[in-house]
Structures are given as C-alpha cells and as structure tokens.
C-alpha cells in the first residue's frame, strides 16, 4: 500500500528549501503559497528523498472566497504519496503556474480546470477549452454560473 507522508515533516523540509512557501503545514495536505507552487513542485519531484515521479491528478474547487487547486502526488520508487494544495483568492482572472513542464499528465487536467473553472495556467503550452467548444461563454463549474 502506498504510504501517505507526514505533512508536518514535509512542510519543515519545504520551508527550508523553498522559504516562505508553506502556509499551513499540518493536516491531510500541505497548503502552499500560490506564488511558490512551481518551486515546491520542482523540489518535490527532484529531491531524492521525495522523488515524486507521478502526478495522479489535479483538482480544482470553488469555495466562494477562493479557488483551491489540489495536487495528488505519488512516487513509484519510494511508494509514498502526498497531497499539496494551493489557494487563489482572486476571482476575476485567477492565474497559477503550470506544472506541465514537470509532469506531462498535467496537460489535459489543467486544460479541464481552465475549461470549467477559468483558472489560467501560465506556461501551459496549449491552454484552451477541452470539453466545451471554442466560443462557449462562461465557466460552468464556478459557483456563480447560472
């Protein structure tokens, strides 16, 4: 069984390597600052003790006050997993750094989040609608839609 990592220990290491990145260290997930998401992801992928070579999925969620983007990371070599979250408080034109450069699997998932929630992933090579068609107005999974 793939073991979940202790979020407190991960958060301690993260704050040493990527200063100022951790917002909320404990709980089920590590909550990181949105400006540092790419640095955190790069570190978690490349550090030998984490070695997260697989991004299982990305989720977008709308909590009225903020959008939350959730990354489920898995390491096949170390057989452990970790949940990383980040929050975007801007509603008008939310942006976040893309992790497509690290994990190719993020490509379609980020497009889906962009399609349905309107979070623009910066650095994505092909950010356009995936389920809906070009010319569709609005982002249907936002709470204010309809």
């Amino acid at each position, binding site marked *: 069984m793939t073991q979940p990592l202790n979020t407190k220990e991960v958060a301690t290491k993260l704050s040493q390597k990527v200063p100022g990145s951790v917002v909320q260290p404990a709980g089920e997930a590590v909550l990181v600052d949105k400006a540092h998401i790419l640095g955190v992801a790069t570190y978690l992928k490349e550090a030998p003790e984490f070695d997260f070579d697989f991004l299982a999925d990305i989720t977008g969620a709308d909590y009225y006050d903020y959008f939350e983007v959730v990354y489920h990371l898995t390491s096949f070599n170390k057989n452990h997993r970790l949940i990383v979250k980040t929050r975007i408080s801007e509603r008008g034109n939310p942006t976040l750094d893309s992790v497509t*450069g*690290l994990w*190719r699997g993020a490509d379609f998932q980020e497009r889906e989040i962009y399609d349905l929630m309107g979070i623009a992933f910066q650095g994505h*090579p092909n950010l356009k609608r995936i*389920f809906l*068609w*070009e*010319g*569709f107005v609005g982002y*249907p999974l936002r709470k204010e839609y309809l």
Partner: protein
Amino acid sequence: MAVEKEVYSSDKLDEAEGAAIEALRTASQKVIGDPDQWLGELPAGNIFLTTLDIALDWARRSSLWPVAAFPACCAMEFMSTSASRFDISRFGMEVIRPSPRQADLMITAGTLTWKMAPQIKRIYDQMAEPRWVIAMGACGVSGGTFAQSYSVVPGYNHIVPVDVYIPGCPPRPEALLYGIQMLQKKIAKERNLSGSKKE
C-alpha cells in the same frame, strides 16, 4: 521539458469546430416533430398500389439495420438486447452497421452533448432513406436529468426527427423491444407509392 506544438490541434480547427457547434445550437432550439406529421407530402398521386406497399413495408420493417451510433450508457442495454438472451435478431436486426450508408435505423442510446451533436447529425444525414430514429432512454427523449445542463442537448428531437420514444434510465431490453415493435407497426402503416398521406 520542451513540448512540441505540433502534437496539439490547431487553433483555427478548434475555432471552426466551435463555430459549427454554436451554429447548430442556435439552429436547433426548436423541436423537430414526428416525421409522420410532415414527411410524405408528395404530390397527390392517382395510382393505387396498396399490394406493393404491403410488400415494401414488410421488407423494410423485417430487416431494420441499426447504425452503430451509441453515445453513452444506454448502449449497454442495447448490447444486452442484441445478445442471445433477448436476441434482437428475431426481428432481422442483428446486423449493426458501422457505416450509416448501410443502415436505416438509428437507436440513440445515451446522452448527447452539443459537442457531439454535429457528428450525430452527420451520421443521420449519411443514412439512406427511408430512415427511422428511436430515442432510447430519458436522455434521448428529453435530456433526462441533464436537461438543464450547459452542455447537453435536451432531447435528440432537436437534432434529428424521432419516430419512437422509449422512456427509462436506462430502458430494459423488453422496453426497447417493445419500442422496436411499435416502430415496425408504424412502418407497416406507411403508404410509400400511392402518394396519399400516411395514415
């Protein structure tokens, strides 16, 4: 990692597709009525060919070949219907054609999204006349539980004219067979050659 742009579809293609979907969506806001209400209004003929009509109708209703166009989950019930337990081949229907040009019945098993709608319309347009459509399941009839959704067509009758509606989510194979029999009875009443309106 450098991602090559060539692996992605071109923006122009996507925009053309989006424009086609929007155009179809705008044009399909009204429901298309039962074909019996508007089809077959040929110039009034004065030849009476009832016997030949009976033979034609018998041939047509006894060998309805469905086209393989099943967008979603009602297709499972259709598979069950076509398998040995319910055995659709009792009606001469076991030949499910992958090519619409060889088919004369469309069983719309499943939810239809606006993005898929142009393809369904194209398949219907490619089918040779005479052709019939059975709307199978709640989504096929009216959009079902997704009727108010942003992406789902509220019933196939916005896209293609429907002859028989089968409610259910999904309909059991018995219901589908009953619907097929209703369609066969409908075909049996058709007057193809006399030029008079269908009864």
